[in-house]
Every structure is written in structure tokens, then in C-alpha cells.
């Protein structure tokens, strides 16, 4: 079973993003929720995580800081990261790509957008 982290400081956003990605292909994944990048970092140390889906604008360690921190740590340098942001535009996609994120999705995502995003990662659900 895949372990996935969804990070957002908003309960509403986490629920919405989770629902979309479950419909899009993560229904069989074990999903951990985090309120900021620091909680993501704790979860990364506790579990084998196959995918991180994170908001950008969070208190504490934000999405940019999280991606930067993950890419500078050999343990997480290859862990795929999807950024979900209300401020998604081509400039943000370029910036996040340069930092090491695999994809940027506009908030609120649709299940179709989430599915396209997972497809770009060649995501294959693993059985339990």
C-alpha cells in the first residue's frame, strides 16, 4: 500500500484535496494529513512515504520551504511532490519545477486535474 501525505493548514482544503485525489486514484492509499511542512517532515521520518501533496501558503514551514528541505535531504530527494495552490500560474509552475516539485495543480482541484497530475508521475496504485 502506498503512503501519501496531504498538507494544508485548512481542514476544508485538506478534505477537498483528499477527496479529489482519492477519486483520481489514491483510494487504496493510506493518507496522512498534515497542517504544515513541519508536520510533513515528522511524518516523512515515521513512515515510508511515496507521494507528498502540499499547499504552498502555510504557517511555519510553508510549501516552498518543504520542497527545498526535501530536495536537500538524500532520503527524500526523489519523493514526488505535487503542489496545490490557488495562485497557480505558469510562473509558479516554473518556480516550483526549479525547486524540484513534480507538478503544480490549481486549487481547488478537480478529480480530472488530479488524475492528469498522477498520470504525469506515472502513478500506479500498489495493492495492500
Amino acid at each position, binding site marked *: 500500500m502506498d503512503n501519501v501525505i496531504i498538507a494544508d*493548514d*485548512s*481542514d*476544508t*482544503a485538506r*478534505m*477537498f484535496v483528499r477527496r479529489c485525489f482519492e477519486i483520481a486514484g489514491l483510494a487504496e492509499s493510506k493518507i496522512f494529513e498534515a497542517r504544515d511542512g513541519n508536520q510533513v517532515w515528522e511524518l516523512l521520518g515515521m513512515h515510508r512515504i511515496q507521494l507528498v501533496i502540499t499547499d504552498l*501558503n*502555510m*504557517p511555519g514551514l510553508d510549501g516552498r520551504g518543504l520542497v527545498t528541505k526535501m530536495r536537500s535531504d538524500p532520503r527524500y530527494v526523489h519523493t514526488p511532490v505535487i503542489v496545490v*495552490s*490557488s*495562485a*497557480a*500560474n*505558469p*510562473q*509558479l509552475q516554473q*518556480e516550483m519545477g526549479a525547486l524540484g516539485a513534480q507538478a503544480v495543480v*490549481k*486549487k*481547488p482541484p*478537480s478529480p480530472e486535474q488530479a488524475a492528469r497530475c498522477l498520470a504525469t508521475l506515472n502513478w500506479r496504485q500498489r495493492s495492500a
Partner: protein
Amino acid sequence: MTVGAPAFELLSPDPTQLRQVMSRALATTFEELTFMDADAVASHQTGGAGYVYAQIASRAPVALALTLQMSVELVDDCIDALFSGMEPSPIIREDVVRELINTIAGSMLASLCEDRLIELGLPQSSMEVPTMVDPGEHHQLVQLGSLVLEATWR
């Protein structure tokens, strides 16, 4: 709420264009996040049970503050659409309104400028009328029933 100093030249909003962008972002956000169209939002004419407020500051590409006012009844309809069966609480009401203004702001700014990075502050919320530290000299307003979205800038 203070607006931080930008690292590059800011765009100056055109009030007419801003109003169009605000209206479009409002409609799109409600449709995509709460599955409510503009008529459903506008059907709540008053806030008999009070209002929920949220504010967010945009630092770039436009320096402005956005304030969203929604009646408790409208927020509760949103909660029902999002979390069917959940009993509304003050905490979840404020969370929903913060997420709405965050999404509205991002949508507005992304449509205003595709080739500039967008810098948003963290949304703040309250059940009381918020005090603007830096209200700005200009303002633009969109109203749908009991919902009011206001932008202020210098």
C-alpha cells in the same frame, strides 16, 4: 493587516478590470469549491445569525487587501455542500471562509497576471467586523445577496 514591501515593481489595479476579475473569481470559486452557483449564493439576502469575515493580503503582483463577508446561513450552506452531515461550528465556519478568500484571491491574481509570481499572506478570519490596519485609498466592491467581497489598495 499590513502589506509587505515587494521586491519588484507592483502592478496598479484598474478598478473596472479588478471588479470584473473579482466577480469572475467569486463565481468560479463558489462553483468549484462549494458547487453553488451565483443565484444560490445570492439567495441569502440577510445575515440574521450574524456574519463571518475573512481577510487576506496580496503582496504581489498587486498590493491590495481583500475582505470577504458572508452570512452564517450562507457559510452553513457551504459546509453542508462540502461536508454533508457535519454540524457547523465556529471553527469550521471560519476555516471555510478563510479557504474561500484564499482561493478567490489566488484565482483573481492568477487571472490578472500569468507571468508574475503571486505572493499572498495567510488568511485571517473572525466573527467580528475586522479592523483594517492599512485600508488603502481605493476600494472596489462586489455584492451577492448577503455576501460582500471588497478590495482596498493604495
